[in-house]
């Protein structure tokens, strides 16, 4: 199943997601035909259980799918829909066969019936039909909202031109709601978002490394390909090491994900991928020279995404501080057992 999903998506994205399409999405917005294609192929419901109308794939099986979205710079909320539908399924709700996104951050107040307050940084918020978010921290509840019904909105994009929108709701009756199961906490969408971005970053980084090596082998200066200069080789080797480490961290996070996300592994994944994104983007631009700094050349869709994604759903610093705090609280004797067992409760 995993292989079929991945190869089908890879073929579809390779056919459809051209540099022109990525650029067009920055100017024109929603790529409706492509979204329809993705949705009708069932990708957005992949992680929802069968009884919720999905395919019931586990996170380990979806790792490659999310990476492909990063590698091809897919300018649509497929990762977001997969996570949202997974959460709905986990709460016993039906998956949504439409474009759906989520808000990891909100200031919503809920009186048990009506909602008021804001949701922030919703990926593709202005285009999606529905969004999910979690309200309340004591006994958290998942609610489904329609961005169209917001009282007001504030539209914005990240560095890569991907929409990241805020909405304010006033006395709004959510179209669906359900209590979170006890193994999930109110931070589940922040954690899930960090998982998605980590996998997208690794997909983008592998592509970045590939195009940088390819460009470097072709570009001739001083009578030889620039990759024949040892400094260039070593810079790319450092990127490759960082990517190898980041890849392993993402794999571990997805492998350990089941009905909840593994805190320690997902922190490590977001920390390692965000660090690798910084190293990778900077070196790729150095190797490409001025051509890589142009809008026409296809490097920036990758690097502008890396610069955005490394900060979304917690930067390396955010997760490092949280992790360091709990390691210090537990004391030095707990460090090694924590590493080998992989268990951390924050």
């Amino acid at each position: 199943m995993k292989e079929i999903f991945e190869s089908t998506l890879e073929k579809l994205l390779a056919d459809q997601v051209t540099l022109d399409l990525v650029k067009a999405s920055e100017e024109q917005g929603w790529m409706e035909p492509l979204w329809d294609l993705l949705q009708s192929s069932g990708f957005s419901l992949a992680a929802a259980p069968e009884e919720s109308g999905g395919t019931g794939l586990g996170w380990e099986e979806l790792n490659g799918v999310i990476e492909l979205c990063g590698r091809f710079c897919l300018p649509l909320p497929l990762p977001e829909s997969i996570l949202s539908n997974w959460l709905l399924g986990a709460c016993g709700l039906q998956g949504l066969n439409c474009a759906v996104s989520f808000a990891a951050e909100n200031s919503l107040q809920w009186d048990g019936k009506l909602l008021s307050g804001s949701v922030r940084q919703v990926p593709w918020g202005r285009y999606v039909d529905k969004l999910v978010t979690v309200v309340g921290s004591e006994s958290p509840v998942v609610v489904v909202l329609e961005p169209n019904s917001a009282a007001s909105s504030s539209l914005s994009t990240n560095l890569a031109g991907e929409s990241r929108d805020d909405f304010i709701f006033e006395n709004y009756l959510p179209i669906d709601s359900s209590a979170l199961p006890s193994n999930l906490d109110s931070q589940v969408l922040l954690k899930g978002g960090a998982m998605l971005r980590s996998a997208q970053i690794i997909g983008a980084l592998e592509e970045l490394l590939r195009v940088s090596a390819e460009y470097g082998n072709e570009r001739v200066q001083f009578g030889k390909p620039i990759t024949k200069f040892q400094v260039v080789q070593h810079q790319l080797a450092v990127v490759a090491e960082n990517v190898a480490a980041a890849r392993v961290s993402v794999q571990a996070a997805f492998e350990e994900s089941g009905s909840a996300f593994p805190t320690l592994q997902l922190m490590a994944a977001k920390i390692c991928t965000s660090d690798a994104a910084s190293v990778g983007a900077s070196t790729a631009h150095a190797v490409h020279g001025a051509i890589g700094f142009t809008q026409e050349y296809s490097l920036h869709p990758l690097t502008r995404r890396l610069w955005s994604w490394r900060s979304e759903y917690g930067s390396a610093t955010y997760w490092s501080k949280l992790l360091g705090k709990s390691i210090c609280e537990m004391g030095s004797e707990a460090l090694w057992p924590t590493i080998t067992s992989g268990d951390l409760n924050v």
Partner: protein
Amino acid sequence: MGFDAKFSQKLGARGWIGMALPKKYGGSDADAFSRYVVIEELLAAGAPVSAHWFADRQSGPLILRYGTEEQKESYLPAICRGESYFCIGMSEPNSGSDLASIRSNAKKVGDKWVLNGQKVWTTNAHHSHYMIALVRTSESESRHGGMSQFIIDLSLPGVEVRPIKDLTGAEHFNEVFFDNVELPDEALAGSEGQGWHQVTAELAFERSGPERFLSSMALLKVMIDEVGQYPDAYQAKEIGRLTARLLTLRNMSLSVTRQLNAGANPAWSASCVKDFGVGFEQEIPEIAQSILETLPSTQGGNDYSKVLAYLTQQAPSFSLRGGTREILRGIIARGLGLR
């Protein structure tokens, strides 16, 4: 890593040395992962495992893979008992990174080999019974041809071992001279002329193990103790980031072990583990001295200042031993198709 022969023998008695070797040679027939668990726990606890370290990691597996039946029977059981110690003779005064330029040589005279030359930086040679050395055995057209490996009994006439003090004054590495040392034919390890190939396979073991990221573990632990339960933002960030990388390095190292276990030669991945691991290990003393205002000291002070002093001075060697940073990056670049 401390040297303690008694400790090594006790470990051997428990079956914790040469675990992955076959039972008939004194091993436990354990898989690579069981061995991995044992050695990483030993390292994480700071156990004195230096005496048997190279034998367990490199020499035992090498003899098992390339040795004759007689060699296996004569060397492996003593390795497993923690009684027989090995050192690795690769570097020479004029051959460091450029290992293929070695000049020590063995010439076949009758049914013996006569060995001449010099090795240097040989860790533990002064405590070891044997050296597995890479030497030249014939002229060869190819840069990597004409080399072979020998198991050299260091008590033979003509072998001289002289310790070299390192920058802290301690004696860990040595120079070893060979003056017409007569080696029996059985000293040849593996095939004549295949030395280079055998050594590169061996280096994957050397470059990917948990010692590649656990040497500075002791400092990370005292750092957590010293910072205490309420770190400030900077301390929390640095300790968290190191923890994330430690977890990831362990996963990388396990993945290389998986490949080694499956009989592959994961030279590329092993080089990534080593260079990324070295970056991590060299960063720990740097972070440690920036996170708290404690003076490093070798003459007393608390655990923190002692461990900091020790690792600050050891750190430069991390990116030299087992292949320098530049050499590893060259290997990684080759894997990327850049050279």
